[in-house]
């Protein structure tokens, strides 16, 4: 596991790209995946220090990713992000993410400063 490595899973290309670019500019080693399955495969091959996952995605959701990673890689810190809104039962998605085992959650639109602070905090957490 690379301590400064971060994995970003988001199905929205432009969102994924800007999150990765910001983190890279701050000196992190960033891997990206456009789906839950792709992300989980990357995670197995090279586990990151922090996993950042969107919650609402086609196919497996971010909540599925969190549940899987909590079982297979308990040491990976998870930050869940969600734009919310599309599905009705979405009121408490972020709360569900915390319950599923995410260490932190942030709502979109992201405050990128807060986002980055959160990622670094998770990377440095013992």
């Amino acid at each position, binding site marked *: 596991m690379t301590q400064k490595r971060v994995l970003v899973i988001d199905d*929205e290309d*432009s*969102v994924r790209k*800007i*999150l990765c*670019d*910001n983190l890279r*500019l701050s000196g992190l080693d960033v891997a990206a995946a456009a789906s839950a399955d792709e992300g989980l495969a990357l995670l197995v091959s090279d586990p990151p220090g922090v996993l950042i996952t969107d919650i*609402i995605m086609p196919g497996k959701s971010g909540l599925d990713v969190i549940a899987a990673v909590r079982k297979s890689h308990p040491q990976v810190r998870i930050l869940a992000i969600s*734009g*919310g*809104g*599309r599905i*009705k039962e*979405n*009121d*408490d998605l*972020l*709360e569900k993410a915390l319950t599923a085992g995410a260490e932190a959650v942030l*709502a*979109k*639109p*992201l*405050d*990128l*400063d807060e986002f980055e602070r959160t990622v670094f905090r998770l990377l440095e957490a013992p």
Partner: protein
Amino acid sequence: VTAEAPHNPTPQDDSYRLRLESILDNIVDGLITIDEKGAIQSFNKACERMFGYAAAEVLGRNVNMLMPEPYAGQHDGYIKNYRDTGRAKIIGIGREVEARRKDGGTFPIDLSVAEVNIGGQRIFSGIVRDITERKKAEKTSALLSALVESSSDAIISKTLDGVITSWNKGAEQVFGYASSEAVGRNINMVIPPERLPEETRIIGQLARGESIDHFETLRRRKDGKDIPVSLTVSPIFGPGGAIIGASKVARDMTERNLQDEQLRHAQKMEAVGQLTSGVAHDFNNLLTVVLGNTRLIRKMMAAQQKLPVFADIAERIQDIDTAAHRGADLVRRLMIFTRQRPLQKTVVDVNACVEETHGLLARVLGEHIKVRVVAGKDAGCVRIDQDQFINAFINLAANARDAMPQGGTLTIETGRAALGEKDKAALPELAPGDYTFITVSDTGTGMPEHIKARIFEPFFTTKPAGQGTGLGLSMIYGLIRDSGGYIQVDSAPGRGTTFRIYLPPCEPGVKSA
């Protein structure tokens, strides 16, 4: 007729008697004569048909055999009493009594009794009319009357030229006129003048023998208020088959229409909510991209230490940032309306909250508007997002201010209201029970119905472009609904506007979710 001497019959008398008997046998009513002891002396054919006895079976026997108990047992006593005192109970008048047939069955009769003196002998004659059919008809009629009277619909009958001939309790309630005020007057009194041609058409249809089913129209109450009604009008046929009038059933549709309207409104808000929540999701992603890129550009410029060179660009980036943040704020407010953003609910003391907002409101409203607070002691606490609740007050106050450009009074009233079954029509989404209410009223211009109907829709605004997002009231609507309550608006041009918020009360100190 030349002589009347029954004690000394002659052939002429016999013929007279025979003629008389023949007449008596052919009359429809029964005729019985008895002597002063009650023994039957004559029993005509009609009696035979009614009682099921042949005359020969009853002649000479006590008339009480034709009566059920308790009359049978009391009859001898009546006759004796009359003989002794001369006080008659039914002689000379008629009354309805029960009679007994040979088979033991009883039937109602109308009995009139007369006393005659023939040759010094007292004879009582009874004319008996079987009133079984009449009684049945009376019963049916009473049942029908009870049905008509107990109906909440207005059931009215009128002549073809519109004169009201009957007016039930339902009509009294629907139209506000007592039966005594309505019967005899023309039906036009409940028809708004512009609807009179309608009545002419209806009468035309009736005259052709046609009925009118569930015709929805307006009718005018005694208090001048027009109400929506559904009319069913049918012709009334006279005995000869001619149309002699019309029966009219008018159902007050006010409540039904209100419920339909509430349902339509709820469905519309639900659809708009789904649409906006979808838009909000995509918008949040777009804003994340915009804000992420501006941040990135700034960082890249800083890394290259060329900020002074790019000062103009930095300013543009700042503008993009500001716009994106405003967009983010808009989405956040939309999310409150669609109930997608979790609210930070806490237990809020309503009166304390109103008090706290008071100073803030004064600043929003300006000096020309007076704020009056009527804090009900029993208003108590509710569970709600306090910041949003305060925002709601400010928002309502700002709307009130815009409705009172010449100044006026903003009244905030709080208290506790018990909602019962009768409030269901106006507040279908609230279960009966106790609610804390907060009303915010202004003395401003008020709104016409078409604006009032859309006031809680997101993006609906009456303000000039750029001066209002049209989200304020829809956010309040979302906030109140999400807090288990309901918001209502009452307004009419020139009458000001009152927003009435109902929230389920909770005990102070209850843990918030």
